[in-house]
């Protein structure tokens, strides 16, 4: 019960963060870009979803001279934000995880970008079937919302395309591979690869 309360508190915290732009106090803050991300989240062949917000912490424009002598321009950004994800593995578990994500994104002048993102957070699994508990005297009962809490880490590499630069659409598409780790899973580490594909909507672009 305690874990459920913690979990719901985190959900509300995320919801508040996602509604950040509607906060009257936000008018006093520097106008930095905010993105909303919505992705299909797949672990191997098992589907799920992923939603989050990205707040720009810093952005640097830079250029470098290629071997050909041409100068290429790019923008390096650091973004931070909460992400709520879920996948469904039938018969095994449903996993809901809330993370804080740091994203190092590098967007070229061609509008293509690459990114690297470590995440840290909390995972709650829900077992993939009715769960029974047997007490010392052999009495069997059904356990509601059975599952486990885990510390969660993930590292991801991805790429995408930013339409806001080429077509003035406040939208990006992205594809990313993540390797997630949960601990303590049966006294050891649980690893699982995941793939996300989706859209990033630019709620507020640079002023």
């Amino acid at each position, binding site marked *: 019960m305690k874990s459920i309360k913690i979990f719901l508190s985190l959900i509300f915290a995320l919801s508040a963060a996602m509604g950040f732009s509607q906060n009257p106090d936000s008018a006093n803050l520097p106008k930095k870009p905010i993105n909303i991300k919505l992705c299909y989240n797949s672990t191997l062949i098992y589907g799920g979803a992923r939603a989050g917000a990205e707040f720009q912490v810093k952005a640097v424009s830079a250029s470098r001279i290629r071997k050909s002598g041409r100068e290429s321009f790019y923008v390096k950004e650091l973004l931070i934000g909460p992400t709520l994800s879920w996948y469904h593995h039938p018969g095994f578990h*449903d996993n809901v995880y809330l993370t804080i994500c740091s994203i190092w994104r590098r967007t070229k002048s061609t509008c293509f970008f690459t990114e690297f993102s470590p995440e840290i957070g909390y995972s709650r699994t829900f077992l993939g079937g*009715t769960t029974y508990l*047997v007490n010392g005297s052999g009495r069997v009962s059904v356990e509601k919302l059975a599952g486990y809490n885990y510390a969660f880490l993930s590292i991801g590499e991805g790429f995408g395309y930013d339409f806001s630069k080429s077509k003035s659409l406040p939208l990006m598409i992205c594809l990313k591979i993540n390797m997630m780790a949960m601990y303590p899973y*049966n006294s050891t580490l649980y690893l699982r690869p995941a793939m996300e594909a989706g859209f990033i909507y630019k709620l507020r672009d640079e002023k």
Partner: protein
Amino acid sequence: MKSKLVVGILILILAACQKETISMGTGESQTFYVDSNGASMRVLVEGNLISHVFLIFVHGGPGSSSLPYNTEYISQHLENKYGIVYLDQRNAGASQGNFNGSGLNLTQMTTDLRNIILVIKKRYGDDSRIFLLGHSFGGLLTASYLTTYYIDGMVNGWLFVDGSHNYPLNDTLTREKLLNTGNEQIYLKKHVKEWQEIVTWCNDHPGNFTLDQSHQMESFAGAAETYIDEVTQIDPVASNMGLALKEQWPLTSMLMNYLYTSNAAFIKDLYKTSFSSQLKRVKVPTLLLFGEYDFTCPLGLGDDIFNRIGTLDVSMGISYKSGHEMMFQDPEFFCREVAGFIELHR
């Protein structure tokens, strides 16, 4: 508004996770979990549940999984007759938990098995007929259960397939079989180089084996059956790949659990464990099945059970084309013997 939406979606997800209707058809596939001292063990029940006969596969390892037993052949020849229970032991396969390594011992695993039988009886009815099938390490676990809870009377039959109930005797018999077969094969000029290495090692290690030596022999035993022409050779990767996708195996969970459990501290206790002296407590009908070329658990272990068990209703079957994995190497023989035994004692 957004927060309400998120919470609403979440409630729907959670409700979907736990909803289940227990049906009793002829082609069922049902998954449930049994919580026991920090571990949630996955139980997959497939097949004909109208029969009210349940055959529980207790897998080997420790640390492997019951999921590979769920082959097409077993589906067609056993699941059509009975409910087949593919159980993943604690810290194995699809079983889940947090810090539960302290519960990883034979006593707790024996209690877990009892809890799972209680749940099956509760879920499918007290009139359910329960048969325990122990393979490899599962032989030790089922022997532990049947010599501990022998007065419970919840089990109607014991099937012991390429299993071990006495690890020290197991090591002695494995060495003996490797040595005898090795010398024969060298005489026949078959895989001389490989057998020579095994025979030399066995000659250098006559007894009082350490855990490392026991593991070395297990490794030789696994390799040895691949040197025998009569044994049906199986490619575990090729034969499991399709099954893994179809049955939605949690592959990384199976791998991480295996790596942890196969190196856990309780392995040191296991290799000195024996139930030979307690077998007279076992009164249930028993079928002993061994591969003629099983070096890992040689059929001498079956002779020991046959001579010591507390029932006269005991029989032994030998497959002449299998080693340690009879259900994959000689599935026709395996299914025929298992079904024949259950029909006699259901």
